[in-house]
């Protein structure tokens, strides 16, 4: 990443772009509180971490206690849970699904593979750091994380939304050049890629 690619954006201590927290009015705060208790989780499985999702959905841990339910399509989902390692081919599909989701949208990096590659640290086909390609709101460490850890992340996300801190989706739009530049380094967008460059309204 050079200075030219990063025009005026804020960076954190590791060199990742961050965004300012927006001012919220009273209505926005109420709406955030309400939406944090009614979320759809995109049923999308990228790696072995998907085996932890059925216990979350079903009666043992019962995700619906938190107002979170599974959703089949990205256009109706709020949360993208990246469950495990991402190969280059899968990353392409993840980015495409992520761009189809409506705002506000939140990304979980689930498992150590999403943080630094995990056991695929020297693989030629697996990306190492999801945060370079899509903005991740919460990482869940572990190989694999148990459903309790996933619920801990859900609770934390609800708190973050209530405080207005879960702004990964704004970050993606404000610092699109950073994420797009990293994406272009590892895969090519086809001619039928549906979405144009996102605009922050």
């Amino acid at each position, binding site marked *: 990443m050079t200075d030219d690619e990063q025009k005026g954006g804020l960076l954190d201590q590791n*060199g990742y772009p961050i965004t300012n927290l927006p001012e919220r009015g009273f209505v926005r705060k109420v709406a955030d509180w309400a939406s944090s208790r009614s979320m759809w989780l995109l049923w999308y499985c990228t790696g072995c971490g998907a085996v932890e999702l059925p216990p979350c959905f079903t009666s043992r841990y019962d995700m619906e206690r938190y107002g979170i339910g599974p959703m089949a399509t990205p256009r109706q989902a709020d949360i993208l849970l990246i469950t495990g390692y991402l190969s*280059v*081919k899968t990353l392409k599909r993840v980015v495409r699904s992520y761009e189809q989701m409506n705002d506000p949208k939140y990304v979980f990096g689930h498992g150590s593979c999403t943080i630094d*590659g995990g056991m695929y640290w*020297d*693989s030629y*086909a697996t990306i190492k750091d999801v945060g370079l390609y899509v903005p991740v709101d919460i990482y869940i460490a572990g190989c694999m994380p148990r459903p309790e850890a996933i619920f801990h992340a859900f609770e934390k996300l609800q708190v973050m939304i209530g405080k207005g801190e879960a702004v990964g989706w704004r970050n993606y739009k404000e610092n699109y050049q950073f994420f797009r530049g990293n994406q272009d*380094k*590892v895969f090519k967008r086809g001619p039928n890629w549906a979405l144009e460059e996102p605009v922050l309204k």
Partner: protein
Amino acid sequence: MVEDSLDHTKAMDPLKGDYKPGSIKLEGALERIKRLIDGVEVEARSIKRGVIKVDPKLKDLVLKNLKEMGFDHFVLLTCIDLIDEDRFELVYHTWSYGTKGLIMVKTTIDREDPSIGSVVPIFRPAITYEREIKEMFGVDFPGNPRLTQFILEDWEGPPPMRKDFNALQYSVERFGTDIRYPKSLPPHLLNDGGDDNE
């Protein structure tokens, strides 16, 4: 030995009657190949497993004869990078339902500009195996009708299954692992000759 093995077929045959009129026991098949074709090395490793080492030019003839003798299930095609000998070894696995035996036909080709004729006219399932080996090892198969891009999407590097391909170095260059963890990668691993790919 050939005649001796012929009457054994019916007892081993899971289907009604003869599965294939010409199917014979594994040792008999190896013996027949040795008699028919000059310059092949045969070895029976057990009653169910045999190896035929053959020149690349004669491998079509060997495979055709094996198919006629009942070894008509093309199990798989593998490639081995013999980097010390500067050769690629290709192994064609054929299975006979009549004798329940596996025969491996092994042949080696040069590692520089590797190319070997396709066996698709004999065994059609070889299309996909040859596609994979073309992508993973860079071996060309003239005669294969479908040598297109297979698994690796948007790939720009060298064939990744070759032993001189350094996966760690490639992943650092391509995925930028050192952006976040510049000191976490031990430098001696980066200069390693790719031994950890095995």
